[in-house]
């Protein structure tokens, strides 16, 4: 009882952690919304589009690992199914929206069926066996993708064209001379249309996931993560819920795969199926904070910026410190992975529940 008194008696503190998280996410959202105008160079465009798609991919993985406590290594497999479905259709049937819809649709359907099968067959067993099953499935898919090279292009992957609307040569609004109208010095061409296609689709998918975690279903998922046995005992069919969320996450990952395939105009094991991506999203979710959704956003941005710009930053650092012994060697861009590793260890040490998780926990402890 004394606790309650203390709580109402204490002056209400500002939830700093929460503000920091929402502020950062807001900035990221703004940056992504205006990315084509803020960062018009090709590389930045690629970074922004990758961030959009990976937020969806990592957040859907967070539905599994963070919200429900399901450990799966098959998430990039579902991503790959969406990407390859789209890529094969664009290659075989030509660059049209129909190809994207048909191929992407087939990929999503395949992901759904496969997820339902894996889920029903093996979500009853211990978590470790389930993780093994997903690992096996993902390995088989990787082998298939390289063996069926007639369709998938094998290790080289597939290069294809995308609908004309998305081509840089397409003017969205033409001026009197037939050139694309410029806004803030950026030509409104098909590339911009493509970026906003990726951006708005990603935003919609992320919104769907936010809705899911705030729904009655979202509550059940957390209950299963916290205490599966009690969730079952109060009347929730745990296997059913687990299978359902596994399917939902698989479908969302496959949809993200479609976006990736359309944006890149290339699909191969490296960009759509490899275990490197799996490890990436695992790290993203751990760094950002499991079971928070916002953690996926912040984690993806950090990881992506680090993997694209850390080398550049280090090259600058090495130059600036050229006159000092040792430092330029340490900052040699070839050592970027080392520094990335050091960064991870520090983050995990100082933010044991991930960035978002730890910041929000701090609020909760401060008596929010």
């Amino acid at each position: 009882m004394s606790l309650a008194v203390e709580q109402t008696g204490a002056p209400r503190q500002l939830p700093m952690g929460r503000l920091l998280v929402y502020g950062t996410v807001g900035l990221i959202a703004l940056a992504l919304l205006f990315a084509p105008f803020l960062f018009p160079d090709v590389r930045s465009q690629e970074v922004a589009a990758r961030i959009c798609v990976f937020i969806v991919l990592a957040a859907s993985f967070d539905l599994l690992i963070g919200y429900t406590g399901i450990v799966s290594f098959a998430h990039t497999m579902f991503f790959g199914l969406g990407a390859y479905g789209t890529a094969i259709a664009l290659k075989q049937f030509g660059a049209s929206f129909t190809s994207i819809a048909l191929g992407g649709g087939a990929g999503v359907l395949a992901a759904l069926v496969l997820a339902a099968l894996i889920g029903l067959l093996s979500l009853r067993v211990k978590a470790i066996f389930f993780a093994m099953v997903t690992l096996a499935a993902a390995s088989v898919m990787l082998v298939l993708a390289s063996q069926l090279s007639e369709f998938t292009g094998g290790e080289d992957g597939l290069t294809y064209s995308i609908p004309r609307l998305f081509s840089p040569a397409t003017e969205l609004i033409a001026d009197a001379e037939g050139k694309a109208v410029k806004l803030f010095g950026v030509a409104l061409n098909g590339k911009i249309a493509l970026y906003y296609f990726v951006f708005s689709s990603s935003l919609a998918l992320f919104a769907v996931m936010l809705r899911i975690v705030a729904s009655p279903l979202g509550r059940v998922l957390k209950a299963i993560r916290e205490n599966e046995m009690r969730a079952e005992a109060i009347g929730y069919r745990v296997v059913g819920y687990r299978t359902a969320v596994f399917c939902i996450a698989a479908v969302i990952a496959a949809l993200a795969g479609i976006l990736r395939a359309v944006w890149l105009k290339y699909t191969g094991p490296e960009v759509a199926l490899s275990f490197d991506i799996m490890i990436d999203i695992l790290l993203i979710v751990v760094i950002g904070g499991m079971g928070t959704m916002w953690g996926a956003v912040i984690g993806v941005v950090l990881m992506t910026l680090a993997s694209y710009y850390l080398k550049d930053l280090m090259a600058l650092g090495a130059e600036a410190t050229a006159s000092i012994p040792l430092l330029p060697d340490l900052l040699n861009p070839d050592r970027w992975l080392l520094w990335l590793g050091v960064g991870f260890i520090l983050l995990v040490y100082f933010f044991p529940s991930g960035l978002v998780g730890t910041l929000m926990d701090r609020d909760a402890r401060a008596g929010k």
Partner: protein
Amino acid sequence: MSSAASLTSEHLGISFGGHKAVDDVSCAFHAGELTVVVGPNGAGKTTWFNLISGQLTPTTGRILLGDREITRLSPSARAKAGIGRAFQLTNLFPRLTVLENVRLAVQAREGQGPRLFVKASALSHLTDEAMSYLEAARLGAVAHLPAAALPHGDQRKLEVALLLAMEPKIFMFDEPTAGMSLDEAPVILELIGEIKKDTSRTVLLVEHKMDVVRALADRIVVLHNGQLVADGAPADVMKLELVREIYLGTGAEEVA
């Protein structure tokens, strides 16, 4: 009670590697009746409860809820059919708030779990209902703390509040006051007394405390080495030598 049984344990049994933890236990329970299950440590009380609420599947026998056989149903299906269970070892959702713990039970009973595109926070009647169970268990003031942050006594109360929120036909309490201080236990006993007043309900209670048994029991069932060795009115059962041994704390000599 002459009415049809609300719950029947028919020749129920389970063995763990040759050791018969529950051995051919037959017993029928009736609505409006509170049965206290007693027996020394390791007698098989909790295991018997696990068979009835579905955490374990029996190797022999059947379980009937009314006339319906439920022997092969999953725990969640049994919960939906009206069997509610509180656990001996506190078994909560530790990082969720006290309110959320109970709300989950309310939401499960109302079948709202699978809803995907409704905002949970918009379903305020779930919250209101959950709060009323928390008030009943004297936990209203700590509703917004994580369950893990509660002291042991409050966790036991929450364990009971979860069971209340299920509104089952069959209430199963497994040592609800275990480890509670003397001034906290009465809250739980009052709650069980309240439950008993509704004669459509069947209550099973594992309890060691003599005064509790006296105050609440309509009937006492004694388990010993997995077997049902006595069953009857409290006054009769209390007289038995074995029961005296158990209650004097000398019943733990046998290790079968």
